[in-house]
């Protein structure tokens, strides 16, 4: 592999999905069922290329960064130009594999999952454009390109969520996703504007190096922090962080594989990737904010996840919660662990979604078979005892659940543990003890609600068991991806030591970059942080195991052994439950405030525009009519076209003046004399 070859491969990886999109969008109708093959095949080839890049990069070009840049727009002035370019470092290589792998498996899964859909080919086309956009983010070497693909990802997400746009809920959800994302994007764009006006370039490398030389926005560290936080806004939107997390659960209106791909593994992870990518520009203050946002997100969504019955909603909130984890991790300085969690989470959360997809698919079929259209195929209360009917799904789902709960021997344990250690280290270094407290609480809650799902779905027996008579395992296209993801959720892919990830290849491949911000505002140094992590490692393992075990235990006690009555607890705290079930009323809050305010302003302004601004010019017919004797002629003139108040006013004066045109010549003469006298007295 040479540098050129790397770049050529990377370019190919970027554009093959686009080709897939174009082919399918234009010839999809003709290809019909074959479009799935075309799409999967093309994505499969990108997976191959990604693997090649990944292995050669990790193994042979460990410390090198490959970059290709070209000028996209040249303003022809003071060397100000906007470049586009791709960059391959280890993080990119890893992300390429993650994205293409999940994408490929989701393609595969979708072949049967989406069978018979009226827009089958378009679905794969949209998967193609999503992959293209996502890979664009991954490969970007500058803010501009990342922003471009950032938006494109939003578009593809919009298209895929709204795949079943006949459903109002789907249409609404897609719109909501796009707009909420846009809010974050605008923040990011503002950040980009700050950087552009400071550095005159948007290339990562140039900005970092200029910043290390002491160039900071508007010579103010406040602006520097602001720039970081504004860029972070993009991540808040895409990674569904509090307070912009509201779109992600709604996004479950899309087909389940889409949820797995976009809303679990890749797109939502893009925010985390972005934070990691531009990590050098964050000041200590910015990082603290990031950490807190992550922590709040993790906590809030975990509490919500506990109170949901829709299997996908639970997973969605769990995703939000885990993303909060990652963001928090990056915020506390656990760069590698945060990114690592992104990767491991991608595998098991995609697996979880696909697993749930498999369940829903099966449920849907069986319900359809029974002509039951009232039962919600996604409600876990309607499931239960699927373990034996769908063994592969169950066992893989179990592995994913263990991984997300952070049980040893899973990849999740590795990454989560490291994050927890990081939070402890952070609290040691800065005194923000609330962060680790939240982190551990959330870990316990995660274990609890994930096992709740697992138990309610697969274990026990369903009271209404005839309803799921005839349910059976999903076809191989669906189970194969599950198995692959399950395998990837085990520890040995990442580290030889099941208790310590830092011995694996990942930790040597992904290293926290040096900060570029001035020393007085930078976070604690890498060394001191590493040391604190090391110091807290044992404590973290112990605590996390304890807490995860506790969560699992309570879960079993409640839902399996029924030692604790969930209903009783619910009855004890109905309002709390309602509060959690209704997702802390975020949607309602936003509806009542932001949306209401916007719509009201819009209406008021439209009214204002029509009545006042236009009215200033127009005058309302009634006012004029009442002042102008309401003669039929006047009405005619008004309705027919005296158009503006100015003209109305003028016209009105005209009307007054013309009353002196009485037709009596002596009156005229009187006016003439009076006029002459007035002129005389005026100048006298």
């Amino acid at each position, binding site marked *: 592999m040479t540098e050129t070859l790397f770049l050529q491969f990377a370019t190919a990886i970027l554009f093959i999905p686009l080709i897939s999109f174009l082919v399918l969008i234009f010839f999809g109708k003709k290809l019909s069922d074959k479009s799935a093959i075309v799409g999967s095949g093309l994505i499969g080839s990108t997976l191959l290329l990604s693997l090649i890049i990944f292995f050669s990069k990790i193994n042979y070009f460990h410390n090198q960064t490959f970059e290709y840049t070209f000028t996209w727009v040249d*303003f022809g002035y003071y060397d100000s130009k906007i470049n586009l370019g791709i960059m391959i470092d280890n993080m990119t290589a890893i992300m390429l594999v993650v994205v293409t792998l999940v994408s490929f498996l989701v393609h595969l899964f979708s072949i049967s999952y989406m069978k018979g859909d009226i827009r089958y080919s378009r679905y794969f086309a949209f998967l193609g454009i999503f992959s293209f956009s996502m890979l664009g983010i991954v490969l970007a070497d500058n803010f501009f390109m990342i922003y471009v693909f950032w938006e494109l990802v939003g578009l593809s997400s919009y298209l895929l969520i709204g795949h079943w746009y006949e459903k109002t809920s789907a249409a609404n959800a897609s*719109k909501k996703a796009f707009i909420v994302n846009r809010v974050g994007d605008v923040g990011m764009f*503002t950040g980009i504007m700050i950087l*552009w006006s400071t550095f005159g370039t948007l290339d990562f490398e140039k900005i970092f190096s200029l910043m290390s030389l002491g160039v900071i926005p508007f010579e103010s560290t406040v602006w520097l922090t602001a720039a970081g936080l504004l860029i972070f806004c993009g991540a808040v939107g895409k990674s569904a962080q509090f307070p912009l997390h509201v779109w992600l659960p709604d996004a479950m209106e899309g087909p389940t594989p889409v949820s797995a791909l976009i809303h679990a593994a890749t797109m939502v992870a893009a925010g985390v990737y972005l934070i990691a990518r531009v990590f050098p520009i964050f000041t200590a203050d910015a990082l603290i904010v990031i950490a807190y946002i992550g922590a709040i997100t993790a906590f809030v969504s975990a509490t919500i996840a506990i109170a949901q019955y829709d299997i996908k909603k639970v997973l969605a909130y769990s995703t939000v919660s885990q993303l909060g984890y990652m963001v928090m991790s990056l915020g506390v300085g656990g760069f590698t662990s945060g990114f690592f969690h992104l990767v491991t989470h991608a595998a098991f959360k995609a697996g979880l979604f696909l697993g749930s997809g498999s369940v829903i698919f099966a449920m849907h079929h069986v319900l359809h078979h029974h002509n039951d259209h009232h039962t919600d195929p996604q409600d876990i209360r309607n499931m239960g005892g699927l373990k034996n009917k769908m063994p592969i799904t169950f066992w893989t789902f179990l592995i994913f659940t263990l991984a997300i709960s952070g049980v040893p021997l899973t990849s999740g344990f590795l990454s989560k543990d490291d994050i927890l250690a990081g939070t402890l280290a952070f609290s040691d270094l800065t005194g923000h003890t609330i962060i680790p407290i939240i982190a551990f609480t959330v870990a316990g809650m995660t274990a609890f609600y994930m096992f709740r799902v697992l138990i309610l779905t697969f274990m026990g027996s369903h009271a209404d068991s005839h309803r799921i008579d005839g349910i059976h395992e999903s076809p191989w296209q669906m189970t194969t991806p599950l198995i692959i993801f399950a395998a990837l959720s085990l520890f040995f892919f990442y580290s030889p030591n099941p208790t310590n990830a830092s011995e694996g290849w990942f930790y040597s491949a992904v290293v926290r970059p040096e900060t570029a911000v001035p020393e007085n505002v930078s976070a604690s140094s890498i060394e001191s942080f590493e040391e604190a992590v090391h110091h807290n490692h044992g404590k973290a393992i112990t605590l996390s195991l304890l807490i995860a075990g506790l969560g699992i235990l309570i879960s079993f006690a409640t839902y399996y052994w029924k030692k604790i009555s969930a209903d009783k607890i619910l009855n004890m705290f109905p309002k709390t439950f309602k509060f959690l079930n209704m997702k802390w009323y975020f949607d309602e809050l936003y509806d009542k405030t932001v949306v209401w305010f*916007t719509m009201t302003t*819009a209406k008021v302004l439209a009214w204002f525009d029509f009545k006042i601004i*236009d009215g200033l010019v127009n005058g309302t017919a009634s006012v004029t009519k009442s002042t102008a004797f309401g003669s039929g002629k006047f009405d005619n003139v008004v309705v027919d076209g005296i158009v503006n108040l100015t003209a109305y006013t003028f016209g009105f004066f005209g009307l007054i003046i013309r009353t002196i045109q009485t037709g009596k010549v002596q009156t005229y003469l009187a006016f003439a004399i009076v006029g002459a006298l007035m002129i005389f007295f005026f100048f006298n």
Partner: protein
Amino acid sequence: MNNNFLNIGILTWMTFIPVVGMIAVLLVPKEQKTTIRWISLGATIVQLIFSVIIYTNFDRSLAGVNNAATMQFVERYSWIDIKSVEWFGRIHIEYFLGIDGISVPMVLLTALISFVAVLSSWSIEKSIKGYFALLLLLDTGMMGVFVSLDFFLFYVFWEIMLLPMYFLIGIWGGPRREYAAIKFFIYTLFGSVLMLLVLIALYFSVSIPDASTGELVHTFDMIAMMNPANYEANSLLFGLNTSWRYIAYVGLFIGFAIKVPIFPFHTWLPDAHVEAPTAISVILAGVLLKMGTYGLMRVAMPIFPDAAIYYLYPLAFLGFINIVYGALCAMAQTDFKKLIAYSSVSHMGIVLLGMAALNTQGMIGAMFQMFNHGTITAMLFLIVGVIYDRTHTRGLNDFGGLMNQMPKYSAIMVIAFFAALGLPGLSGFVSEVFSFLGAFQTFRWITIASTLGIVLTAGYMLWTLQRVFLGELPEKWKSLTDINNRELIMLVPLAIIVILLGVYPTPILDLMNASANELVDFIKGENNLTILGQ
């Protein structure tokens, strides 16, 4: 390549070919409707071909703006030369055409939009002869504005457009056409008379030495007006930063602002758009609005750089108001056309913001946004026209689920909508980003506030998309037919341009680069001023 054909300059051809077409149309008996249509189309196609020639022959390295020597395709003939009496001085009005990077995108846009407009007028049946004659006259007026460098000539072309527009809206428009037409007419005339006064003031203040005799000659030459050395001492507009110059700038500004339209002079626009027939809406939004901003760039700012700098902040602020106010108003509309009309208000705000930035990115962004808004809004109006032709309603709530019924149409529509909301990969994005990037350097907070418009635009655009295309198809539209070939011919080229420029904007950007930089340098450098906010 020679830029003359039959010894007549290419810009003259561009400008007056529609008049030739008009005369031809008038000579054809009114029963031969097809001939009339084809003559009109022919005229615009020829214009389009000339515009391609201009595009290929345009020298990208020449800046123009305030330098007559670097203007291109120049045609300069004496038109009116008065040298009778000594007390009046000598007065010279020229037939002076020429283009630079500021005007060339507008010339291309005008040719393109005129062509599209003729195509979209194919289904007009009422008094077709008069319709096409007026449309072609309008075309001449628009083209003339963009190519003339003599202020008097500019003004004449500017005013020539009014009457055809009045009739086109008034005769072929919707139910409230008379109201809309006269509103447009009076509003624009109000603006242009103020411009007239400034024009007069300039003409008395500026004089240049005659090439041969050396005597001072009063002139309408815009380029001469840009040079402070040409102002006669003690004339009204002599000097820099005088209150007369500020007043004159404001006068010009109002004249152009009405055309843009800038809040609070915008209320003619929703009415005119709603009532105008499709093709006229397309021209109105696609070309006419640009005249306002073009005028600011070509006339107001370079002639009064001092005042332009002085009023930079209000300009940016008006840009902000336009963006947010237009978007909010659009959000509350239930009439498809009105919504798009307000979206134009919002999008033209971006042009203002970019212009006010007074730096390279901002200026290029603004100029590019002018071009892009022209193509995108043209598409949007055509789209509304297509559906209005079929359903005779524009109520957004009357539709739904058209996506399945009219897939080709929907695809085009999605492109247009996403281009309008500034999706990357489509041209609207590029210009929007440039404008904002530029504006931020000059006006930090205003620009940040203006980004609100980006979200709002997404909001109303997607909401509209949903209301029209998504959801269940109402029973009454089950028999709607998809877009036909003629409609595709007018929409697809626009869509291609939108995508192409979104991916690779350089073909247009390199036309205006040199001029935009020169313009910025000139306005700033003239005063050696520090810009507000920096």
